């Protein structure tokens, strides 16, 4: 589903050059639930942004659903993100001026050929999926952190996107709310959504299908949990 080939990412400012990713090769299959772990600054968020077409790699290629994204114009990338990819962020990033349902509808405002009614229905469906059917008209300030993150998840999946990229989705939540959110992610994964999640929580990561470990911009380890088999990727 997501193929990263020989990815390199270098951040250049006038004074420093930071190599955030180096020789990264990852193939994430449809329906997988992958955790990305590693110390702070090792390039996890950078990886997620590149996989989600939010940022371009300095070198290397990104294939989504078998299609190469190289050379795509801003407009095509935007359309691609809209159709295929949903994002969940550590700090939720809901729009405070909009209520739950309007927040969830937001990505679909940019989808082509979807009627207002359809949009509304899809949003309601997604909100019910994350268990907030009774909070449709609430504003973010009236919700708990866990509820906010669930709204964010609903927003990410409402359009029917098949890839969910979550950067520390439980990072701002206490463990009970974190588990609630995780449960929703597991459910979504069971229903077929491909999920890549950055986390610092070893326990959560262990529950996912595979853990990718990063160090200093390189992927150093890939651990498949289901078979409890560990393979070293020496790169």
């Amino acid at each position, binding site marked *: 589903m997501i193929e990263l080939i020989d990815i390199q990412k270098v951040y250049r400012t006038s004074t420093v050059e930071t190599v955030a990713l180096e020789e990264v090769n990852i193939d994430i299959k449809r329906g997988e639930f992958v955790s990305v772990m590693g110390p702070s600054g090792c390039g996890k*968020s*950078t990886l997620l*942004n590149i996989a*989600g077409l*939010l*940022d371009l790699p300095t070198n290397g290629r990104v294939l989504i659903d078998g299609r190469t994204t190289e050379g795509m114009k*801003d*407009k095509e*990338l*935007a*359309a691609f*993100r*809209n*159709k295929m990819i*949903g*994002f969940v*962020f*550590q*700090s939720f*990033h809901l*729009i405070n*001026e*909009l209520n739950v349902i*309007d927040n969830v*509808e*937001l*990505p679909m*405002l*940019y*989808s082509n050929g979807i009627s*207002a009614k359809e949009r509304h229905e899809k949003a309601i469906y997604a909100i019910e999926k994350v268990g907030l059917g009774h909070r449709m008209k609430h504003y973010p300030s009236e919700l708990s952190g866990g509820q906010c993150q669930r709204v964010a998840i609903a*927003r990410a999946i409402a359009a029917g996107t098949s890839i969910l990229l979550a*950067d*520390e989705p439980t*990072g*701002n939540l206490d463990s009970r709310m974190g588990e609630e959110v995780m449960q929703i992610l597991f459910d979504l994964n069971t229903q077929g959504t491909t999920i890549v999640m950055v986390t610092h929580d070893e326990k959560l990561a262990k529950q996912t299908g595979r853990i990718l470990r990063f160090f200093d911009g390189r992927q150093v380890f890939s651990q498949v949990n289901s078979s409890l088999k560990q393979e070293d990727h020496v790169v």
Partner: protein
Amino acid sequence: MWFSYLKLVFAGMAKNKFFTALSLFGISSTVMIIMTVVLLFENSVAPRKPESRLDEMLFIKRVKVVVKDQSVSIGNVGRRLAVEYLAKLKTPALINVSSTDRFEIFYQGKLISQQVIVTDPNYWRIYDFDFIKGRSFNLAEYNAKAQVVVISSSLSNYFFGSLDVIGKMIKLRSQEYRIVGVVKDPPYTSTNCFAEAWVPSSLIDIPAESEGSGSWSGECYLTILPNTPADKQRVIDDVNDLMRKLNIRLASKKTTVTLTGPDDAKTVYVRGYQSDEEFKGVTQFYLKWVSFILLFLLLPSVNLMSLNITRIRERATEIALRKAFGASRGVLVKQLLIENIILTVIGGVIGLTMAYAVLRIFAYQLFNVSPDMGDVDLVITVNISAFILTLLVCFIFGIFSGIIPALRMSKLNPAEILKGGNK
């Protein structure tokens, strides 16, 4: 998509009350000033009763008489030139000669000084007055130099209240006149028709031709209504022809008589602000105005632009989110511009309303009329073209002030903005 988007725009405006108020103030005060001038112009040249056919009319109001090495005089058209020459043109048209003056009007101990139009029967055919009672004076009365008068309903009320006035006698400049008709008051904005009474001009003698400027310049102005709009040019040609012949004849007396016009109503109005030497046509005048408006818009545009730029940081997350979830740069720029235009249009409508209010409050000063009768309603309308102009101005305004902030916002890197922990 637009409904949800608008909802967000208004939510944003409500949240940032200070910003909204500040920008609205800048826009609306600018639009107010521009539209006051525009409405003033439009209402002065608007064809409305009794000037319903204003667009078809031609006017001759000014004449310049030069007697070589002696004198130059500019004034209204002399009665002799108006009646004996211009009004006798064979052109297919109705030609009226009028003059306006203040008369002392007297009835049973009440005396009032009012504007009176001294005119001929064609006047009533060119202008479509509403007669509340009676009729206009006719050709027979005119030729017989009958002392008859048509008065406005406000003058009628002032002297007679609700009494029937037809046939009653009132005094104008100590002469007895018989009232034959009462008309609905023409609006103050009507430069050609505003008066309280109308009397036949046959009562005034036509001066004999004399040396100098005396017989050529005077107190009259002509209104010409060509039979068909296509005859307009013919009228102009005929008048020019007549004047050429007159000037050939006057050459021996070293006298040159030059008319201003025949002009249409808009030209007459524009000329009112310029000397004949300055006047370069109505289009030129409009262009001058348009460039002035654009220049005038620059300041509040820059102001709004800087306000918008200061808000970029505040709005970064929202913009980044939109990008992450699939808004392309182009769509984003379009949205931000539309948002800005919505703001300017709201400001514009407020400004237009304020301009209308200013015109109503200061109408007498702005239209340069002095209504002592008091009970006449002032007719000021905001027509479609003024409204469209407002929208256009706001549109330009919105684009001016929105494009740079919008482009900047669209270039924000969402990855950078959305990552990280607590915001």
